[in-house]
């Protein structure tokens, strides 16, 4: 192991309290992902895939264990510092797109930069480029409800990449799309991976999962298998 891993989890536990019973969403999870990898996370419903992804995205905190991102322990960071890491290092793509309905496509794409306080001139330059890259140039002023599902997810991907993150976390990005559109979206994500961005995709779809170099199979909160496609 000469390359320092981008993500390194050790002994991660996540327990949800549901009334009297405890749900072990993640149990003593050890995992390491190198920069530039393309990882598919698969497994049955309720196996902890989304929980894992939320932890990786610093949207959730583990109950035990440490999470190192780029060699730095991020579990002990303050909420404000975690927000900064999310802003600069992590891009999210969600199954249900999660666009802000009152903002236009361009504004949605610009949102992470707006939140980060980047100057308007720089913002519009990058947004313009992103709109072109994702084939949305003539949809810039459309609101999400005026866009098709595929266009919405392209906006979401553009938004996830606009801050040039080190890792993109996608939770069932094609779950709400038909096969052809889903294919298109996966192509975009894989293209980003080809440029060096680490890509972690949660999916139910075995066919989609097998396109990744590495497949993680989750079951009942544990890693059941970790296979690298050869």
């Amino acid at each position, binding site marked *: 192991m000469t390359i320092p891993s981008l993500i390194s989890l050790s002994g991660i536990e996540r327990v949800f309290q549901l009334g009297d019973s405890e749900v072990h969403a993640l149990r003593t999870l050890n995992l390491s992902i190198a920069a530039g990898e393309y990882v598919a996370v698969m497994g049955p419903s309720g196996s902890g895939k989304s929980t894992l992804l939320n932890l990786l995205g610093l949207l959730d905190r583990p109950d035990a264990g440490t999470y190192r991102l780029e060699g730095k322990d991020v579990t002990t960071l303050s909420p404000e510092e975690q927000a900064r890491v*999310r802003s600069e290092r992590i891009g999210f793509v969600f199954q249900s797109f999660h666009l802000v309905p*009152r903002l236009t496509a361009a504004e949605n794409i610009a949102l992470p930069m707006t939140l980060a306080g980047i100057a308007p001139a720089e913002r519009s330059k990058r947004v313009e480029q992103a709109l072109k890259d994702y084939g949305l140039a003539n949809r810039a002023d459309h609101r999400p409800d005026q866009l098709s599902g595929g266009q919405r997810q392209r906006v979401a991907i553009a938004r996830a990449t606009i801050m040039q993150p080190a890792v993109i976390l996608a939770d069932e990005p094609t779950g709400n799309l038909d096969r052809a559109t889903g294919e298109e979206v996966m192509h975009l994500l894989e293209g980003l991976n080809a440029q060096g961005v680490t890509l972690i995709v949660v999916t139910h779809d075995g066919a989609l999962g097998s396109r990744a170099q590495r497949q993680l199979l989750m079951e009942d909160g544990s890693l059941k298998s970790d296979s690298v496609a050869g």
Partner: protein
Amino acid sequence: MRTPDLIRFARDAATGNPLRSGLLVLAMAIGVAAVVILTALGDGARRYVMNEFSSLGSNLVIVLPGRSQTGGFNPGNAITSTPRDLTVDDAQALLRAPAVKNVAPLAVGTSEISVGGRLREVMIAGTTAEYTQVRKLELAQGRFLASGDWRRGASEAVIGAKVRTEMFGNAPALGQLVRVGDRRFRIVGVLATSGQGLSLNTDELVFVPVSLAQAMFNSNTLFRILIEATGRETIEPAKAQVTEIIKLRHEGEEDVTVITQDAVLATFDKLLGTLTLAVAGIAAISLAVAGILVMNVMLVSVTQRTGEIGLLKALGATGATIRNSFLTEAAMLSLAGAALGYLLGQAGAALIRHLYPTFPAFPPDWAVLAGLFTALFTGILFGVLPARRAARLEPVQALSKR
């Protein structure tokens, strides 16, 4: 997040839900409009009364017989139960005081006035030529009583506007002879309508020379001595000098009360100022209610926008950014409400002035400023709790809740 971005974001969030925002703006507007209109009414009442009293005459000092009870216990008063009368000589002596410009004695009584078979009971005011100066009276016709020796007056009378219409109708009154009591007077002047409700109404008075009035009432006492000081700043010196002169003339006993119009005015000013303040306070309650509404509406907004808050956090928004955006929204809505309320309030006050032209219903500046400030303050204050709640939401829970 940059300030212009923050403002635009908050504005879009506010306009994104017009019903909610409209309701909030309306509540704020009603609160501020209530403050503006109610204080306009309160302060209008104060101004109205002030104007009425000012029209009594400026720099007025009034001498009344008898010691006012507010002076505390005075052994001299205890012995002489009946104070000495005020006389025309007393009045004339006051002219010696350097701070006094004009003196007008006033004797008052009732009598009957008759002309051409019409008979009417009237108030007779016996005074001198100086009375018009002191009281700033205006004549509609003719002149006031002639100046000259106070002890000898010509048989002339000046009548109030109402007496004129009742006794003469449309016929000319000037130069006519009237009988007052058992004397005959020639009418030399008619006073202009005063139309005032608060002061002794000159419309119903008949003015005759003080000497004749005293002869008519068979008494040499005065009801009042009215004094005009030389200037506003000499009112107090005039009061002191007048008191001193009367005291000397009454064997060292201070058996008169000297009041200044300023004192009366100040009392009313204070009274009605307090009233305005109280009214403003009541109106401010509606602002507090509006503030609670702000809180309620913003809390609902936080709940409705939980998913959005989670998303913003996922995209790197800090708690502070979320909090500021909600606070900015609350402040903007409050500000819009305050501005709208200000316009509504001013329009309402203008309407009152239009309907009652004599009533100066202008909201005082302090009330307008306080109203606007309170609106903004409550808006932000009651916005803090929802904003903090939004800022503290766990991103993952916020995201999953839709």
